[in-house]
Every structure is written in structure tokens, then in C-alpha cells.
């Protein structure tokens, strides 16, 4: 054991890493050609991608944009690129893209849909990016009512009266709270707006409209279609399913047995039933249970079903996030004297939601894509419209181009959501910064 003792005289400074592990060469070596197995896989993958592009790119490029029927398209492609060349007939998109986007919405009213979409982005901005001024959130709160009015038209009083429902709920809460305590207040806050919306909102807005008529031309739900319909259903479902999902998840964890069983029952029932079934219930069965003569808007019915469906899944996702939090977080919040709602809002939810971001956004993306299922109950979303377009003699037999275009639009939406979720995860990562 001689000579094992050692004392370093001078501490070593920092030195740069060797060439093989830094720079482009280092990157290539590490990521593409790390071992002979890696190198083989790299070459195979590159070959695979090349073959796909070799087949698809010519089809996309050797295309016709100007024809007015599938037959003309084929002739134009044959003329330009030679016989038996298979090319895309983008002319159908050129002719029908407005329909794929707006459905049968009256073309002189397109500006309303466009404006609603731009305002949607404005109202989303402060929610997505906390750096923006917080006052913008007031606009976000008003946007649903404004958007409803812009899209469906009619009297301006209806959305205003509908928004007043929240004020009615608040006043009922204050009054009942003062008169009969907190529980009565909570019940009144729930019941009063519902009463207001079902029985009072319509006559009141009619009355106001007859006094001061402000309105734009109404557009009925049957004319909604295309991407506008998907976005309407998708965004409403997304915006509503998150808060409902949070409440369901909290309810499921609650110590109140009845509340807990209600939440568990709801979640398990909804998760046990296919969305298609719920949509059929929305489109056909629901009317049977309604009093005769009531006209319960089909889009509203679908939105409700999609929201309920998604919120059940959301609840489970958030429950996962809650379960991942150490018990100490709850205890620390308790020991500081935060009450239940403050604890949830300030300590628990920010962390639980952060943990569940990937799953939540996954759910959102799923919901958005599930909106195409409404074509089955006869709503004219982009998929529903493809059948309409193919029913036209000129475009009979066209498939890839339409689905390709729809896929592209969906991809833009879903990919943005996915990128945003990654950005958010990075931003909220406070563990090792």
C-alpha cells in the first residue's frame, strides 16, 4: 500500500471539451453516428424519408389549380406533364376553400366570422401570455358574448342580458348570504342565473330590443359549417371543459360524500359512453325530452355534449396532477392559514395543472379533432362538407386533395397547441433554473 497518499498542489482550472464532443462534428457523432447500429438506423431513416418525398412531392407539384372539374384537371395535368402522370387537382380547393372554411355562412357576412376570429386571438393573448397587461382579461371575459352576437347576429341585447345572468347570480348570493347564511347564498348563486337564463333572458332582451333596437342580421345555425364550425365547437369545448374538469376533480377529492359520489358517477358515466352516442343523444333524443315547441339550438346541444365529454377526461387528468403533489404542500398551505379556495388557487392548482400540462393539451387536441365527429349527425364540418363536394358531378371521385387540405388546417391548429404547451412547460419549469 505504499504511495497511495496524494496531495494536489494546485487546483486545476476549466479546460475546453475535446473536439469530438463539441461543435457540429461532436453533435453528428453523438446524435447520428454514435454506434454502428445508430449509423445504420440513420441511413435507413434518411432513405425512407427520401422515398416518401420522391413519391409525394411530384404529386403535389405537378398539379392543376385552374380547372373547374376533375376531368378538366386530369386533362390539364396530362397536357402539362405528359400522359399518365398522377398529379393533385388543387383546383377543387381553389373553388371550394371558402365553403370549407365558412360552410354556408352568407358570404356578405364573412367579415363577422373573420372579426370574431381576430378578436378570439386578442382575447386568448392575455390568457396565453401573462406578460401582457392584465386589463386585457376584461375583454377576454366579454369575448364569449361578443363572439356569440357576431356569429349568430340578432339583437345585441340577448348577449348583454345573458351576461347579466352572472350579475344576477352575484346579487342573489349577496342577498341570500345576508339573509340565511353561506349555504343558502351558494344555492341562490347557482339557481338564480339558471332561472334568469331559462325563463327571463329571452323576454327581457325582446323587451329591450323593442325599446332600443340594436342588432345585425341573424344567421341560423343550419348555415354554420366548415372550419368555422369546428373552431366554434372546439374552442368553446376547450374553454369550458378545463374549469368544469377542475371542479369535478376537486369534487372527486372532496370529503363531502354526496358531492364526491355525484362527481365520480358523472365522470365514470361519461367516460363509459362513446362520444358518438352522446352526439346522437344531442341530435335526436334530447328533443324528445324537451317540452314540445322548444327549439334548442343544435350547435348549442353539441357544444354541451362535447364539453361534458371532455370535462370528464379533464377531471381525471387533473386528479393525476393532484395526486402527484406531495402532501406537504397541502399542509404548508394549511399551516399558513390559507382557506380551501385560496389554497387551491394559489398553491395546489398552479402546481397540479403544471404537472398535467402535457395531458391537458393532449385532451384539448383530442377534443378539437373529435369535432369532426359531428359530421355523423349531419352538421357540415369540413369532413361533412367533403361529402357535399363529392356529390357535385364536377368533383365526383376526388379524395386526397380535400382530406389533405383539411388535414393541413387541423395540423396548423393542433401543432400550435402542442408548441404552446411545450413553451409553457419550459416557462413554468422552476426546478433547475
Amino acid at each position: 500500500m505504499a504511495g497511495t497518499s496524494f496531495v494536489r498542489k494546485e487546483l486545476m482550472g476549466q479546460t475546453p471539451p475535446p473536439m469530438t464532443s463539441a461543435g457540429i462534428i461532436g453533435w453528428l457523432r453523438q446524435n447520428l453516428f454514435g454506434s454502428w447500429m445508430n449509423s445504420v438506423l440513420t441511413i435507413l431513416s434518411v432513405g425512407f424519408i427520401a422515398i416518401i418525398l420522391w413519391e409525394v412531392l411530384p404529386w403535389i407539384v405537378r398539379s392543376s389549380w385552374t380547372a373547374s372539374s376533375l376531368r378538366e384537371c386530369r386533362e390539364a395535368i396530362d397536357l402539362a406533364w405528359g400522359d399518365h402522370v398522377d398529379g393533385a387537382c388543387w383546383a377543387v380547393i381553389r373553388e371550394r376553400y371558402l365553403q370549407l372554411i365558412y360552410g354556408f355562412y352568407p358570404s356578405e357576412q364573412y367579415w363577422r366570422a373573420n372579426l370574431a376570429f381576430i378578436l378570439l386571438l386578442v382575447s386568448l393573448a392575455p390568457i396565453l401570455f401573462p406578460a401582457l397587461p392584465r386589463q386585457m382579461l376584461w375583454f377576454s371575459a366579454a369575448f364569449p358574448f361578443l363572439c356569440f352576437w357576431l356569429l349568430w347576429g340578432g339583437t345585441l341585447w340577448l348577449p348583454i342580458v345573458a351576461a347579466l345572468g352572472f350579475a344576477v347570480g352575484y346579487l342573489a348570493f349577496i342577498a341570500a348570504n345576508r339573509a340565511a347564511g353561506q349555504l343558502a347564498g351558494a344555492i341562490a348563486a347557482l339557481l338564480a342565473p339558471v332561472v334568469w337564463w331559462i325563463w327571463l333572458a329571452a323576454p327581457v332582451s325582446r323587451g329591450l330590443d323593442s325599446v332600443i333596437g340594436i342588432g345585425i342580421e341573424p344567421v341560423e345555425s343550419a348555415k354554420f359549417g366548415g372550419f368555422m364550425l369546428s373552431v366554434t365547437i372546439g374552442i368553446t369545448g376547450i374553454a369550458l371543459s378545463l374549469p368544469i374538469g377542475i371542479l369535478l376533480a376537486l369534487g372527486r377529492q372532496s370529503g363531502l360524500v354526496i358531492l364526491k359520489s355525484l362527481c365520480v358517477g358523472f365522470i365514470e358515466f361519461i367516460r363509459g359512453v362513446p362520444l358518438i352516442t352522446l352526439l346522437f343523444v344531442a341530435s335526436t333524443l334530447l328533443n324528445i325530452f324537451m317540452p314540445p315547441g322548444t327549439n334548442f339550438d343544435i350547435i348549442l346541444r353539441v357544444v354541451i355534449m362535447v364539453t361534458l365529454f371532455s370535462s370528464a377526461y379533464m377531471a381525471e387528468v387533473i386528479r393525476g396532477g393532484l395526486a402527484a403533489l406531495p402532501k406537504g404542500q397541502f399542509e404548508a398551505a394549511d399551516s399558513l392559514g390559507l382557506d380551501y379556495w385560496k389554497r387551491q388557487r394559489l398553491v395546489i392548482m398552479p402546481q397540479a395543472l403544471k404537472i398535467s400540462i402535457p395531458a391537458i393539451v393532449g385532451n384539448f387536441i383530442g377534443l378539437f379533432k373529435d369535432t369532426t365527429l359531428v359530421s355523423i349527425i349531419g352538421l357540415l364540418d369540413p369532413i361533412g362538407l367533403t361529402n357535399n363536394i363529392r356529390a357535385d358531378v364536377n368533383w365526383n371521385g376526388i379524395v386526397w386533395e380535400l382530406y389533405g387540405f383539411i388535414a393541413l388546417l387541423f395540423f396548423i391548429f393542433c401543432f400550435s397547441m402542442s408548441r404552446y404547451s411545450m413553451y409553457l412547460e419550459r416557462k413554468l419549469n422552476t426546478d433547475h433554473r
Partner: protein
Amino acid sequence: MSELLTDREIDRSHMEVSDEVVIEITGMNKWFGTFHVLRDINLTVFRGERIVVCGPSGAGKSMLIRCINALEEHQKGQIVVEGTILSSDLKNIDKIRSEVGMCFQHFNLFPHLTILENCTLAPIWVRRVPLKEAQETAMHFLEKVKIPDQAQKYPGQLSGGQQQRVAIARSLCMRPRIMLFDEPTSALDPEMIKEVLDTMIELAEEGMTMLCVTHEMGFARQVANRVIFMAEGQVVEQNEPEAFFDNPQSDRTKLFLSQILGH
């Protein structure tokens, strides 16, 4: 076992125990299912006392102090804190919790908030202190625990000892009249234990009423005015530290002391 905790002289000028009762526990019992965790606990704490609770693991030490701010519910007996009876009434519980600060073994800082935000959260939302004032208070206490320069960092970037000192500062920001410590140094490296204990000593020097569950016998000897020994869910022996360590009465205490001080 190092007997001396700190080489400096502890300033005892403010360490006075008054006659004012701050916590009164009478006939308290607690069960987990059928398991009797706390058995007939009677304890009176006076203002300015520094009590160390020790005992073998599973003795119910943590459970006892967690009952005082209702993190655990007791099933029988009565706990009165600062004149408020601890019942299932949420108002009373919140009132007591805002009077009583607590530090945990695993710090339990909020990882999604900065150090400063951790310290201002409760004053702003519970006490309704204006943001500016809350931040000033927070900085004051962060200076006291000697980490004002970390205020903008996140808990994950701090060492264990620093995190525990932040946790102490966070509790102090609520201006508690009683501090509970649940094994505050058990999850720390030896180097860091000292910095946390130093902070606790300073707190004691200012006359804070403290209840500490700890295995730091040096701290008990030098700072505490009373040591409580618990085993099997009951208080077995309590005495002034001098008498407790030098002349333990019960066999259970003697066994415990011989085990932790013996080597």
C-alpha cells in the same frame, strides 16, 4: 454527540417565561382507525417557553404538535390556543393557524413561487397586507435568516439549509406568536444543521414561544427551558433540561438517553 451547540454566548436577556398560558391541552386523545396514537396528553405552554419534545420514532411527537394547528384532528379532549378553542369550526382553525407558525422536516416551500413570493403569499392573501408592505416584511425576515440575496430565486435552486431558513422566514412573515418545529433539521446535512439551529437560537433569543420536535440534544440543553419525553403516544417525563439529561427518572427515559447520547 456534540454537547455544545454554538460557541457564542446565548443572550438570555429576552428569554423570559411569563405566567400567561398560550396553549392548554387537556385530556387529548387521538386514534388512527383503532390505533391509539396519542393517549391522554395534558400540556400547558406559557408565553416565552422553549419546549423540546423528544422520544423514539413512533412516539407521537410530530402528531402532538400537528394537532396544535389542526393539521391532524384530535378525537377527544380539548386544545386551547391563544384563548381559541380548537374545534371543527373552520373559522377557529384558520384563526389559530394564522397565529401559529410551523416548520416542517421537508421545508415544504412552494416550488412554483420565488423565495420572496413564498414569504409574501400568506400575508397578502390571509392578512390582506398590501403587496409593498408584505415585500418589505419578507425582506426583513429574509435578512434575519441571512438569505436576502436569494429572494428572486426559486426554492429548487437553494440548498436544504437555505430552504429551511426560508421556511422559517415564511412562517415569521405571518407574525406568529407561537412557532412549531417538526424535526426541522432531520433532513439536512451536518453542515447545514448548524445554520438552521443558529436561526432557531436567534428566534429563541427574541423571546418567541417555541415547540420543537428534534433530536438535537445540544439545542435542548442550551436553549430549551423544558424537555418533554414521549413514548408510545404519551408524555413519559418532562423536566428542565439540566435535570432531564443529568438525572432522568423513568427507565424509558434512561434507555432513550443512553441510546442517543451513549456513543
